[in-house]
C-alpha cells in the first residue's frame, strides 16, 4: 500500500508540474505545426513520397506524433537533473519507498505528460483537416502511452548519470535525431537501402510509428505496414520492459 501511494504521489507531482508550466504547453504547438504544415505541404508538393491514396501530410502525421512523443519523452530526463540540482531528489531517495516505485512513479508521470503533448498534435491535425474519428483517437491513446514508457525511461536513465543540464542536452540530441530519422516518421522504410532498413528495425520508434500508422491511416496503410499491429505492440512492450529494468537499476545507483 505504501508503495502504491508513493507511486501515486510521484506521478501526481510530475503531472502537476507539467500542467503548471504554461510556456511549455504553448510552445509544444509550434514544432509539430511547422513539420506538418511547411514540411508536409512542401515535400508533398515537390515529391511523390506517399503511397497511392494518401497525401504526404497524412503519411507523416503519425510520424510527427511519434516524433513529439520521442522528443518530449527524452526531454523529461531533465526533471531528474533539476531534482538533483535543487536537492529534491534527496527527499525522494531517502524515503522508505522502493526504487522501482520511485522510478515507475516518475516515469509514468512523465509519460502522462508526453501523452498530453501527443494529444495536442492530434488536435493540431484536426485543425489541418487530418481528422480522426473518436474510436481511432481512443485506440491511439494506449499505444502512445506504451511508446512513451520506454522512451521516457531512456531519458531518465541517461539523466541519472549526468551531472549537468549541458551534458544532458548534448547526449539527448545525439540520440533524438537518429531515432527520429531512422523511425520512418518522414518516409516509408520499405524504400530504403537494405542496410538502413536493418538499422531501422533496431529502432523502437519504428514499431511505434508503424503501429500509429496502422491505427490512424487504416485501410490505406494496410498494404504498406511493416508488420501486423500485434507484432509492433509486442516489440514496443519488450523494449519498455528492458528500459524500465535498466532505469530502475540506474535510479538504484543514484546518490
Amino acid at each position, binding site marked *: 500500500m505504501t508503495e502504491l501511494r508513493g507511486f501515486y504521489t510521484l506521478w501526481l507531482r510530475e503531472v*502537476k508540474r507539467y500542467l503548471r508550466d504554461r510556456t511549455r504547453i504553448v510552445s509544444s504547438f509550434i514544432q509539430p505545426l511547422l513539420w506538418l504544415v511547411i514540411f508536409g505541404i512542401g515535400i508533398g508538393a515537390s515529391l511523390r513520397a506517399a503511397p497511392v491514396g494518401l497525401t504526404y501530410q497524412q503519411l507523416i502525421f503519425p510520424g510527427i506524433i511519434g516524433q513529439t512523443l520521442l522528443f518530449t519523452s527524452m526531454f523529461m530526463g531533465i526533471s531528474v537533473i533539476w531534482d538533483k540540482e535543487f536537492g529534491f531528489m534527496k527527499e525522494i531517495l531517502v524515503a522508505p519507498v522502493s526504487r522501482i516505485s520511485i522510478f515507475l512513479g516518475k516515469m509514468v508521470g512523465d509519460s502522462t505528460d508526453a501523452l498530453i503533448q501527443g494529444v495536442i498534435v492530434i488536435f493540431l491535425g484536426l485543425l489541418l483537416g487530418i481528422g480522426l474519428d473518436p474510436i481511432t483517437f481512443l485506440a491511439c491513446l494506449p499505444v502512445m502511452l506504451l511508446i512513451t514508457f520506454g522512451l521516457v525511461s531512456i531519458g531518465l536513465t541517461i539523466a541519472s548519470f549526468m551531472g549537468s543540464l549541458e551534458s544532458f542536452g548534448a547526449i539527448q540530441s545525439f540520440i533524438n535525431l537518429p531515432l527520429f530519422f531512422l523511425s520512418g516518421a518522414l518516409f516509408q522504410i520499405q524504400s530504403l537501402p537494405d542496410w538502413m532498413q536493418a538499422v531501422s528495425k533496431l529502432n523502437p520508434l519504428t514499431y511505434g510509428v508503424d503501429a500509429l500508422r496502422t491505427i490512424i491511416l487504416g485501410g490505406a496503410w494496410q498494404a504498406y505496414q511493416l508488420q501486423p499491429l500485434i507484432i509492433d505492440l509486442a516489440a514496443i512492450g519488450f523494449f519498455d520492459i528492458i528500459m524500465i529494468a535498466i532505469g530502475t537499476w540506474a535510479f538504484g545507483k543514484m546518490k
Partner: protein
Amino acid sequence: MTSAIEVSNLTKSFGSLMAVDKLNITVESGEIFGLLGPNGAGKTTTISMLCTIMKPTSGSAKVNGFDIVKESTQVRKSIGIVFQDPSVDDRLTGRENLYMHANLYGVPPNEQKSRIDEVLQLVQLDDRADDLLRTYSGGMRRRLELARGLIHYPRVLFLDEPTIGLDPQTREHIWTYVKQLKKTHDITVVLTTHYMDEADKLCDRIAIMDYGKIIALDTSPRLKDTLAGDVIMVKANNLEALSKLVVEEMKLEKIQHINDTLEITVRNGKSLLPRVMELATQNKIFVESIVLREPNLEDVFLHYTGRKIREEAGGKELHGMAAIQRRKIR
C-alpha cells in the same frame, strides 16, 4: 533511559581520506545532541550514514534499535531529516510538498490532513500553505522542511546545519521550534552545526568533531568548565613587568602573551580583575584596557584542537555560487 542511537566504530573513508574515523557515540532518547565542528569535520558524513543515505566503510550503528545497513527501511521510517541543502519542490505549494511527503512515508490517508495542519501551525506557515514554494523566503522554506520532517512522527529528527545562511531572527525562531518539539513530541534531535552559539543554546550535549573524530563530548557548561575558567585580558605599557608581578604576587600561573595582550586564565575572574588592576597601579604600570571574558565554546574548540573553528571551505563556496546561479535562472 534507552538509547536512540548507538554508534560503534563507525568509519567512512573516501580513498585515503578518513571522513569519519572509528566513531563511538550514544545518543540518549529525548535529548538534543549536537555535532559541532568546522566544515569538512565529518558531521554530514556521519549523519548521512545514520540516515542510511551512505553506507559505512566499516563499523556499525543502530538508530531506534534498527541496524543502519541491514534494516535501512525501518531506520528511514522512524527518522525525520532536514538536509543541509534545500530539498523541496518549489513548483508545488507548501501543502502539496507536505502531502507528498506524507504519502512517501506511508502516513494513513485519513490522518494526513490533521497532521499537516498540525505541523504547519507549529512552524507558523498555515497562512502561506497554499502558495507555491518559489514565493517563500529562505527561512520559510527551512521552516517548511522542518515541518515536513515531522509529519510521519519520527522518533529521531536529524537536522544538518538547520540554520545555515539564515538571518539571526529566523535562527532564533528555528531554535524555539526545535526546543518546543522536544517538549511536545518527546523526540530525539541530532543536529550538526558549525555555529558555536547554536550548539550552546540548543543542545543538551555537544560532541566536538574534527578530522572525523570526536575530540570532546559533554554538556555545554561542563565543556566550558574544562577550561580553567575566565580570561582576564590586559593591555598595558609594561606587560613584562606586569606578568612578573602577577606570577609573584598573585600566584597565578596560566599567563600567555598574545600579540600585545596579556591573557590570564583564572577560576574566578570577577573578583580577581580588580586585584590585577590594583597591582598594576601600585607599581606605576599604565593599563590601557582590561577586559574579562567568560569562556565560550569557541575557546573550548580552540582548547581541544589548538586552532579556531575553520571558516567555510572551498567546496561550500562553490555551492554558494551555484545557489546564486540558481536564483538567476529563475
